[in-house]
């Protein structure tokens, strides 16, 4: 699952030629035209590669005959850095993996540490974790929606979704003091209790969110041009999605019902009542639509958790020089982009011997070279946006 999906330069070049030959065989007119293929480097500096993703496209006119993923421009050596930091010192780094869903990364790391050290989490902390994590999921999905529509040049929709996200970020700031790179969920609970009058703030924000999402939905979702650009574009069959190890909303948009919150519940998700939206189309539109549906489910989860919030402590204090027993753990959570797993090997010292992240974006992007042939540049940009990658967790 790890590196197989990103082909090496030689391997990809070979497959490109094969696809080109196939396209020529399928359409005899192509030979008569005497067209010439050329390479276009889409990225790493390009307005719609969502950071520094780089696609080497082989093009025939505007249609793609081959695509090669090039990653690593945002590599910061975070997994190696973990080996020279104590467990607590590395915790803030985790929010920089998937920087659009920082607190979800916190949670995965905290869960791995809790399993490693057998730490109990107070019940109130578990509820707060769900509240903050689902707020973060909403914020992350709003970024996806807005970057998807701006890649189709629906600039107004982009502003609507981003303004809605501001409200959520304000809540996260009220909780943790930080808007993006939170270090809130830590091993043993959460760093602080919820602030005063948080429930009222959440209520106000959700009212605003619903109004803005309705506006957004009316402006974008039914638009004929938007549908024309996304329906039936970049279709991932359910089998294909499973073969590539895709997870998260991208997988559920292809008709596979897999959500760790339901299928392998962690925290208190088994006590909460929510649905997992599943769509069948597998195209760019379904991947866009499922995020809209998931936002509404997340709102429901936050409201439920707020209603059932028990009293009590929010954190089990760990000693400053915390040394877990030697061993290794793998813990995974349903992040905003799919299954995010932390593999930590401990040698009994205060620092991890090895830390590895299974990041959903890294796995999801692997399917793109297979999707790309046959698409145009415009479709490619829409499909890339619909996969919702974050380079921070691809390159780490």
């Amino acid at each position, binding site marked *: 699952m790890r590196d197989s999906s990103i082909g090496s330069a030689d391997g990809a070049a070979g497959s490109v030629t094969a696809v080109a030959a196939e396209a020529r065989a399928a359409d005899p007119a192509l030979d008569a035209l005497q067209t010439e293929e050329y390479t*276009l480097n889409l990225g790493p500096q390009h307005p719609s590669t969502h950071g520094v993703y780089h696609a080497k496209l082989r093009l025939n006119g505007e249609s793609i005959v081959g695509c090669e993923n090039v990653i690593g421009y945002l590599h910061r050596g975070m997994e190696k850095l973990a080996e020279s930091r104590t467990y607590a010192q590395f915790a803030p780094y985790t929010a920089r993996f998937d920087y659009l869903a920082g607190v979800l990364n916190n949670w995965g790391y905290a869960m791995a540490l809790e399993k490693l050290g057998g730490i109990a989490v107070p019940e109130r902390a578990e509820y707060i974790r769900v509240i903050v994590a689902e707020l973060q999921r909403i914020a992350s999905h709003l970024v996806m929606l807005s970057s998807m529509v701006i890649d189709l*040049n629906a600039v*107004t929709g982009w502003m*609507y979704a981003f303004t809605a996200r501001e409200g959520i970020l304000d809540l996260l700031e009220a909780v943790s003091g930080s808007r993006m790179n939170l270090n809130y969920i830590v091993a043993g609970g959460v760093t602080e209790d919820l602030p005063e009058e948080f429930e009222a703030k959440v209520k106000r924000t959700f009212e605003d969110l619903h109004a803005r999402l309705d506006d957004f939905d009316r*402006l974008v979702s039914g638009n004929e*041009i938007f549908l024309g650009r996304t329906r039936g574009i970049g279709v991932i069959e359910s089998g294909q999605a499973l073969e590539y190890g895709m997870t998260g909303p991208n997988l559920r948009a292809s008709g596979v019902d897999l959500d760790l919150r339901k299928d392998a519940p962690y925290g208190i998700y088994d006590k909460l009542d929510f649905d997992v939206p599943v769509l069948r189309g597998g195209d760019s539109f379904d991947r866009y639509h499922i995020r809209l549906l998931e936002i509404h489910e997340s709102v429901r989860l936050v409201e439920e958790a707020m209603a059932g919030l028990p009293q009590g402590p929010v954190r089990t204090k760990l000693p400053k020089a915390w040394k877990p027993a030697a061993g290794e753990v793998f813990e995974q959570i349903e992040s905003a982009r799919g299954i995010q797993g932390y593999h930590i090997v401990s040698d009994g010292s205060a620092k991890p011997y090895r830390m590895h992240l299974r990041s959903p974006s890294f796995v999801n992007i692997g399917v793109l070279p297979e999707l790309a042939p046959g698409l145009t*540049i*415009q479709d490619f940009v829409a499909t890339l946006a619909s996969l919702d990658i974050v380079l921070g967790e691809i390159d780490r």
Partner: protein
Amino acid sequence: MQTLNDLFLIVASFFRGIMGSLGFPPLLTDAVMGLVSFVAVAALVTVNIIVILWVDRRVASFFQERLGPNRVGPFGLLQSVNDAAKLIGKESIMPAAADKRVYKLAPVIIFTVTMILYGFLPYGRGMSPVNMNAGLLFFIALSSTSTIAILMAGWGSNNKYSLLGGMRTVAQVISYEIPLAFSMLGVVMLSGSLNLGQISEAQRGIWFVFLQPLAFFIFLVSALAELARSPFDMTEAEQELIAGYHTEYTGMRFALFFMAEYANLFCVAALGATLFLGGWSGPILPGYIWFIGKTWFMVLVILWLRWTFPRARIDKMMKFNWKFLIPLSILNILLTGVGIKLYQYFTTVGR
């Protein structure tokens, strides 16, 4: 009121009279007056570009719940002046591998063409700087030459994104010229003239938008494509092609492209106002005020569309043109012809 309406004409004839009495030969008088009207048009273009730029950004920001430029000058009105001054001060970088002559010439050509187009517009009764009988035909012919400039920019930059933008432009603009010209034919049939002044004159009773609603729709759609405005802005397509044909342009060369785009926008809006909204005809206010007002209405409609729609896909857009818009525009010509004949028949029978 009549005096106010003919203000510019009276001023013009006054100067002509002075020059005549001073013993200037008629040819020199014509040349001087031509120069004056050219300067007037150039001033109008410049002022309009600055105002449109500001309005575009302000309107967009009101659509999107933000403030937009509001710091430089009253209501941020001088922001565009500031930007233009900044662009003049920027270094003009040329790619080493560019086709130098073509690269340098392209922005000049595109801006010149746009400036010439302004000369044909009827700003009021008898207020066309160039009053040509085949004015509309000349307008269409001239406006399509900007395609060449864009292709030159795309080719000369020696950049794949630029080239893609340039090629898209050629395909798009040439295709959409057909329904654009056909939609104007209905108007020409009704007014019986290709002279833009006479077309305005013919709409004193009723605006052609009520007689030719289909043609107006076709005109609006194909004008958007001609201008390469969203939802048909494939030629620039920042999300796909960085900036399309002007990716490699910086400084004042880029500013020329940018200004030509907005100048074109105003020009086509003015043409729409002339052909369908009655041009300078209207009650009470002087004709030139009506003309500018109607043009600005068209500009705002185009801006409104831009900030509402996503970008279409180029192949679907071409399909839409060849399979829907062109047949529709031909149908419109047929309907107009039948309508004119029926009207003539019934009016003669009534007599």
